[in-house]
């Protein structure tokens, strides 16, 4: 097992000093993992995300990112420069009018000098598939493009971990697909990714899925293990993936299919059954 990058050790957090968003949360995310965090509204998933890069610090227990206690203000700068975060609304997080200035904002804050700075901006835009957009106005881009610019802005800081806090919630299907493709490619290149979402088709593409329910880890495992738990997902008011719903319907009709979570899996499964005749 790779060394833990992010470690929630019996962490507790409250906004108002009375009601805890989570009270005793323990979770470890190793280097290089692509983990999706699911949960309904009020499950604490966004609060969890903001703990990873010390935007919020726990009121009880400890959160360690890269082994550093996030409560220690000395580490804040180090943690934030290595843990990049993308928020839900692209319009609220773009700082500059021009794409290249926005992407450069992070590394400029880190004091990166030219020509390294210019190289990073160029590479980051290439990584999210927006080569040649340097001089475009950010307001003229589509939602999906804007969100990719914000990812480029984080990548230009050369982070070790990327946190996406419902970054796809406001995008149309094409924008979501583009965002997911970028995340998969980054993960293949070695990036650790923590993705907060409520879209099942996104969770199905992760390595590990964690389901939160009122501040507690309810399910934790591979997408296959977690997303096939239709009863628990329904109880938590989450969507059950289409392939899983179909498998269960077929099983209830006496067809011996395995419980699948992606459409290509169930397609292959059905064709296999059909070919036996």
């Amino acid at each position, binding site marked *: 097992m790779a060394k833990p990058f992010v470690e929630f050790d019996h962490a507790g957090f409250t906004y108002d000093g009375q009601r805890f968003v989570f009270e005793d949360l323990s979770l470890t995310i190793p280097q290089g993992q692509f983990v999706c965090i699911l949960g309904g*509204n009020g499950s604490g998933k966004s609060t969890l995300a903001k703990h990873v890069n010390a935007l919020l610090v726990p009121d009880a227990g400890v959160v360690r990112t890269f082994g550093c206690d996030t409560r220690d203000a000395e580490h804040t700068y180090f943690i934030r420069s290595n843990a990049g975060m993308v928020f839900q609304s692209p319009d609220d997080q773009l700082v500059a009018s021009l794409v290249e200035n926005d992407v450069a904002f992070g590394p400029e804050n880190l004091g990166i000098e030219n020509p390294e700075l210019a190289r990073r901006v160029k590479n980051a835009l290439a990584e999210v598939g927006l080569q040649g957009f340097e001089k475009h106005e950010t307001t003229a881009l589509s939602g999906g493009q804007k969100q990719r610019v914000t990812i480029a802005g984080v990548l230009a800081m050369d982070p070790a971990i990327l946190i996406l806090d419902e970054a796809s919630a406001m995008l149309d299907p094409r924008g979501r697909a583009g965002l997911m493709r970028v995340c998969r490619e980054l993960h293949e290149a070695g990036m650790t990714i923590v993705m907060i979402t409520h879209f099942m088709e996104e969770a199905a593409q992760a390595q590990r899925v964690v389901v939160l329910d009122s501040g507690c880890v309810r399910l934790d495992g591979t997408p296959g293990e977690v997303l096939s738990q239709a009863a628990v997902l329904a109880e938590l*008011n989450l969507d059950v993936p289409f392939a899983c719903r179909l498998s269960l*319907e077929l099983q209830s009709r006496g067809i011996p299919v395995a419980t699948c979570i992606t459409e290509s899996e169930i397609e292959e499964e059905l064709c296999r059954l059909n070919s036996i005749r």
Partner: protein
Amino acid sequence: MPIEFDQVGYTYIDPKSRKRKARRVERGQGASERGKWGTDPDAIWALREISFTVEDGEFLGVCGHTGSGKSTLIQHMNGLVHPAEGRVLFDGKDMADKAVAARVRTSCGMVFQYPEHQLFAETVYEDVAFGPRNMGLSADDVDARVREGLSSVGLDFEELHEKSPFELSGGQQRRVAFAGVLAMRPKVLVLDEPVAGLDPKARREFLALIKGLHETGLTVVMVSHSMEDLAELCDRVLVLSEGRRLLLGTPDEVFANAELLKSVGLAVPAPQALALRLRERGFSLNRGLYDVEGLAADLADELAPCLAARFEEAGKR
């Protein structure tokens, strides 16, 4: 009260400069400016040659990519936007007439994207009362409308009417905004992506709410990105692509065109997509449009005999 679109075209550029451009085109300059579409900043036409009718009591779905002209199209329905070409008729009367347009405002309720961002009043009551008050109703009528509006979106009047709308949860805020439109007792309800940004639970509740409103006799026009929702709820679906009408018909008719939809980057509902792929791989699956239950039933029927034969064989051995 049907809303009829007759050869509607719309452009972001004001007619005067369009004429100037047209002259330039005639003189042979700027010919390339024509035929550019969608999000292209040089785009001239947001809508082109749109003809269809929203029938009384129907549930019409509208889909298309960002920049395909959906939002512009629905804003023609209550006269917020006037066509540059063609006419929009409400109950047979041209909406270019200001008196008609003013009447349409109250009969055609428009719910914008993220409607909770338009809340403004100190109390929920005042916010919902805004529309009825603008209609010039008496205080008693306004009060009745507010109670009716809140109850039709499933909110408790006694509990909420004195609260500030800004204290409520996101889902409740959106309900209040809905109530504000319903309090005007519209005949037609036009919704621009009513469930965008909601979590799965709130999304399902909202769709159920909209379905219920339609069942009470309201005509509903809904813009959505979710083909599954459109297939399940709509009587007819209108597909826009680059400002033009690509398809219009029942969900069965529209989603039979998987290839055409794919060519403009749109998908068909997941069960339908899987059914079409399986059909190519030797399954018969001959229904027009599949949902999960329908697909499971047909697959079970198709697979059962051969599975039974296999068990028999295994039994003999």
